[in-house]
């Protein structure tokens, strides 16, 4: 069941309000919605709320055989499934265009940018490596699934602890959680996606579009950066063409946003670490 198109009144009002300098929910153009991070009891489970958009990420690991041509590299897999729970427009088993774009963006942002050190996942070269799997569940769709999913994925990876391993010669012992404290993954940098939507013939750019803004937009672009101002990915799939100085302007805004969000993620992780100690 496809989502109904918005009524003409909504479309015209949104565009007129943007021309006047206002967004429907009262935000300024470059404001993200309120970001809330909630950690689960287990390591590697985090729920991200970006306004009304909710995404849940869960990390799990297992030991498998590596590829023969890459004997020292572990695996990092992302599984994104958009279920009807998020929106009536999604159907189980059938991938919409949006779903494909979201999963490809997350793969590009996380895996190609080498955020997670896959070489560090090796236990015994050629025989045993860790395979890390990130399951991303979309609970509520109110626009900007990509940014929320990216924040959820990287925060879950930062939060996750894998079992400690001791290798003596050929003998591999995977310690249980009782024997040894689990070990965090080695994450090089924290890539954060920032999505921009374009309106008014390319003159107006807004950050973090809501569902209605996404339905009315003329084009969109997602920039993935980290705090060190390195561009991990830039995706502009179709939509209205933009000038180069507008793209650079978006990048400047994204740098500021990424710094804010990274600080918030790290503060949340530290608070949760204290809670974990207090609980034990």
């Amino acid at each position: 069941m496809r989502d109904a198109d918005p009524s003409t009144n909504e479309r015209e009002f949104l565009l007129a309000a943007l021309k006047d300098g206002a967004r429907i929910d009262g935000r300024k153009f470059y404001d993200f919605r309120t970001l809330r991070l909630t950690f689960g009891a287990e390591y590697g489970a985090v729920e991200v709320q970006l306004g009304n958009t909710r995404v849940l990420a869960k990390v799990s690991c297992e030991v498998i055989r590596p590829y023969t041509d890459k004997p020292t590299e572990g695996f990092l897999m992302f599984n994104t499934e958009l279920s009807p729970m998020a929106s009536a427009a999604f159907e189980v088993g059938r991938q919409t265009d949006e779903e494909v774009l979201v999963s490809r963006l997350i793969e590009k942002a996380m895996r190609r940018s080498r955020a997670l050190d896959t070489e560090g996942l090796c236990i015994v070269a050629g025989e045993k490596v860790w395979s890390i799997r990130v399951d991303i569940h979309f609970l509520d769709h109110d626009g900007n699934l990509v940014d929320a999913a990216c924040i959820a994925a990287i925060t879950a990876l930062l939060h996750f602890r894998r079992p400690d391993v001791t290798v003596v010669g050929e003998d591999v012992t995977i310690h249980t959680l009782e024997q040894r404290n689990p070990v965090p993954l080695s994450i090089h940098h924290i890539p954060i996606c920032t999505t921009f939507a374009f309106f008014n013939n390319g003159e107006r750019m807004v950050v973090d579009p809501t569902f209605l803004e996404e339905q009315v937009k003329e084009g969109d672009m997602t920039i993935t950066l980290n705090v060190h101002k390195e561009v991990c990915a830039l995706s502009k799939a179709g939509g209205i063409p933009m000038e180069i100085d507008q793209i650079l302007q978006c990048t400047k805004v994204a740098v500021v946003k990424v710094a804010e969000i990274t600080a918030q993620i790290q503060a949340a992780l530290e608070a949760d670490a204290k809670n974990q100690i207090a609980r034990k």
Partner: protein
Amino acid sequence: MASITTEEESKLLIVLPGDQLPESGLMEDSSAAHRLTLGPGLAPMDDDSITAVKAGILKHNAVGNRWWVESNQRRYVAAQGESIIGVVTGKSAEHYKVDIGASQPALLGVLAFEGATKRNKPNHNIGDLLYCRVSMANKDMEAELECMNPTTGKADGFGELKGGFVIKISLGLARRLLDPKNLVLRLLGQHIPFEMAVGTNGKVWVNSANAQHTILICNAIRNSEYLNSAECSAMVKSLVEKM
């Protein structure tokens, strides 16, 4: 299945689906007739007992000995006689297909407007917002709408809604907004002149002089769902001061 004892009428009684209501408690007030009127959320069972089928607050009106459950949900189920806001999604020779937020689109006859004849009928486009009345609804067929008062044949406020903005809210909040004594609307009306149409399908249309005011009103209405009166006044005051 839990059994409930209704102690006092003034206490808030929360029921869950499957809760049985005691026969004795319900017949106390009916001095005149031994008749009981069941509203939404209650259903008689085979063994003559009454069970709640929706989760919510049990309400009672001594006039006519009416009992019902005030529940809340977001998905609309069409019921006859209700006024709703719909979006035109399709046109055919005889009907408009209107999306009212139910599981099926509803049908609006092309001639179901005030003073419409075959020669002179209104022309609505896809995407238009219409304020209509549900003329027929049951679970087996698509609901049917009309844009006029059935007894008088006059428009009575039904028809196309031009301009403004429409937001989606829960059904419970929509019913509360229809109350003439609603606090949020009264407070907003003291500061900003606006016009509004409430659809019992959870859609509210707001129109005012400029876009900023409309956005403010929409956000105030959305926020007011879970606030009590004191918090409501504080919220409206803070929103108006920011203007």
